[in-house]
C-alpha cells in the first residue's frame, strides 16, 4: 500500500481509523491504491476486494455511461480539485447520496502521482433537508388554502349575512315607527340587537380578512389593527415603517398574521403597557420587530403553557413557509421582542420550484 504523503505513522493511523469519511487514493489512471475504515463502512468493500479496481465502480451506470468518472479526474487535474454531490453505489448495489472531493496530487517535479478522494455519506442529511423542504412546502400550501378559505367566508358573510341583517334592521326601524308605545319599544330593542349582531359580524369579517390589507396595504392594515386592539386591551403602541414599496400579497398577509399572533401573546401573557412595532428593510428583505415592555419570560420555556406554544410554532412556520425566519427573545423583567424577516421576492412561487 502507498505511504500517505506525510509519511508519518500517526498520520497513517489517523486516516486509516476515520470512520465518517471514506478517504482513499487513486493512481493517475483512476485505480484505487489505498482504502480506509470509513471507506469500508460507507461503501462496503474491504481493502482486499477493492484495491486495484477502477473507481468508476462507485458510480451508477448512467454516470459511467456519461463518462462522469473520467470527466471528474480531468477537472481535478485542470483545477486542482473537484467537489461534487450525487448518487454513488455501494458494494451491495444500493445507492447513497455522497459529497465527494477529489484532489490531484503532484510530486516535486510537477508530475501527477494520483488523486486523494474523500467521500462522505450525506444520505441522512439530504433526507432531513428534503423532509424539511417538503414540510415547508406543505405548510405554505396549508397557509395559502387557509387564507383563501378565510377570504371566501369573509366575502360570504359580508355580502350575504350582513346585507340581510341590515335589511332586517331597517325594516324593524320602519315598523317601530309605525307602532305606538310598548310594541314600538320592543321593536326598537330588537333593532338594537340586530345592529349589535351586524357590528360583530363586521368584526368577524375584519379578523378573517382585514379589508384594509387588500384595499390600502400592509401599513394601513396594521394601523387599523393596532388602533383596534390597543383600545380594547389598554395598550399604547407605536408603528414605525420604512418600507420602500408595498410587500407582495403573500408577504403582507404573513407579516400581518404574525403581528396579530404576537400581539395576542402580548395581551395574554406579557402584562405590558406598551408595544412598539417597527418595519424596516434589512438584507434584501423586510424585518418586522415587535417589542413590549411586559414581564418577559424565560425564552426556553416561554409561552409553553396554556396553548401559547402553538402560537409560537405557527409564527415560525409561517415565516419559514415564506422563506424567512422568526425569532423571539425575552428575559424575565425585560419584555419580549419578536422578530420576523421575509425576503423581498418578485414571486415566492419561483423560489419554491428550485431544488
Amino acid at each position, binding site marked *: 500500500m502507498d505511504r500517505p504523503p506525510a509519511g508519518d505513522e500517526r498520520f497513517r493511523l489517523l486516516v486509516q481509523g476515520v470512520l465518517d469519511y471514506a478517504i482513499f487514493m487513486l493512481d493517475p489512471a483512476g485505480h484505487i491504491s489505498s482504502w480506509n475504515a470509513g471507506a469500508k463502512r460507507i461503501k462496503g468493500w474491504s481493502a482486499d476486494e477493492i484495491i486495484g479496481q477502477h473507481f468508476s465502480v462507485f458510480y451508477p451506470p448512467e454516470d459511467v455511461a456519461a463518462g462522469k468518472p473520467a470527466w471528474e479526474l480531468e477537472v481535478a487535474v485542470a483545477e486542482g480539485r473537484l467537489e461534487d454531490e450525487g448518487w454513488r453505489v455501494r458494494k451491495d448495489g444500493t445507492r447513497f447520496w455522497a459529497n465527494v472531493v477529489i484532489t490531484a496530487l503532484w510530486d516535486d517535479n510537477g508530475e501527477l502521482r494520483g488523486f486523494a478522494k474523500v467521500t462522505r455519506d450525506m444520505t441522512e442529511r439530504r433526507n432531513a433537508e428534503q423532509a424539511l423542504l417538503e414540510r415547508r412546502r406543505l405548510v405554505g400550501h396549508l397557509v395559502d388554502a387557509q387564507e383563501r378559505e378565510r377570504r371566501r367566508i369573509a366575502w360570504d358573510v359580508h355580502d350575504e349575512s350582513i346585507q*340581510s341583517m*341590515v*335589511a*332586517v*334592521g*331597517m325594516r324593524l*326601524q320602519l315598523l317601530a315607527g309605525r307602532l305606538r308605545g310598548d310594541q314600538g319599544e320592543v321593536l326598537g330593542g330588537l333593532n338594537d340587537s340586530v345592529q349589535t349582531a351586524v357590528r360583530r359580524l363586521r368584526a368577524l369579517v375584519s379578523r378573517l380578512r382585514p379589508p384594509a390589507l387588500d384595499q*390600502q396595504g400592509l401599513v394601513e392594515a396594521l394601523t387599523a389593527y393596532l388602533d383596534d386592539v390597543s383600545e380594547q386591551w389598554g395598550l399604547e403602541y407605536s408603528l414605525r415603517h420604512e418600507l420602500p414599496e408595498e410587500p407582495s400579497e403573500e408577504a403582507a398577509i404573513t407579516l400581518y398574521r404574525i403581528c396579530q399572533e404576537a400581539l395576542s401573546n402580548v395581551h395574554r401573557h406579557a402584562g405590558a403597557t406598551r408595544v412598539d412595532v417597527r418595519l424596516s428593510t434589512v438584507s434584501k428583505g423586510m424585518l418586522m420587530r415587535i417589542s413590549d415592555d411586559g414581564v418577559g419570560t424565560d425564552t426556553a420555556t416561554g409561552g409553553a403553557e396554556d396553548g401559547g406554544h402553538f402560537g409560537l410554532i405557527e409564527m415560525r412556520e409561517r415565516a419559514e413557509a415564506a422563506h424567512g425566519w422568526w425569532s423571539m427573545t425575552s428575559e424575565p423583567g425585560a419584555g419580549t421582542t419578536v422578530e420576523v424577516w421575509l425576503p423581498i421576492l418578485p414571486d415566492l412561487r419561483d423560489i419554491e420550484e428550485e431544488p
Partner: protein
Amino acid sequence: MNSAVRVLIADDDLMIRQVLREVLDEEPDITVVAVAEDAEEAIRLAERDRPQVAVLDVRMPGGGGAHAARGILARSPETAILAFSAYADRAAMAGLRAVGVSEYLVKGVPNTVLVEAVRRLGRGPG
C-alpha cells in the same frame, strides 16, 4: 309643501331594495320613482326619470357604484348621488367623491340618517 323629492334606488340585494323603497316611501316628502338591480339599469332609469337623488350600492354587477355614478351624472347632471355602501372604506369613499358622489353612508346607519341625507340632497344646494 314643495313636491316630493324623487329618488332612484339601485342595489343588487333584493331585501335591501325592498326595504329601502319602503323606508323612503314612508316619508310624505320623498317618493321612489325607480328601482334598479345593477349599474346599467340604474343609468338607464336615471336618464329616463331624472331623479333628484340616486341611492346607489357601491358593489353591484355591471361596474358598481362608481360606474353607475359616472353614467348617471353624464346623462342627468342635476341628480345628486348618495353612495349606500357595505364598506366603511376610505379609499373607496375618496374614489366615489372623485367621480362626483355627494354623500357616502355605510349600511347599518339608522333609517333617520339615511332619510335626512336624501331629503337634504333632494332640496339641492340652495
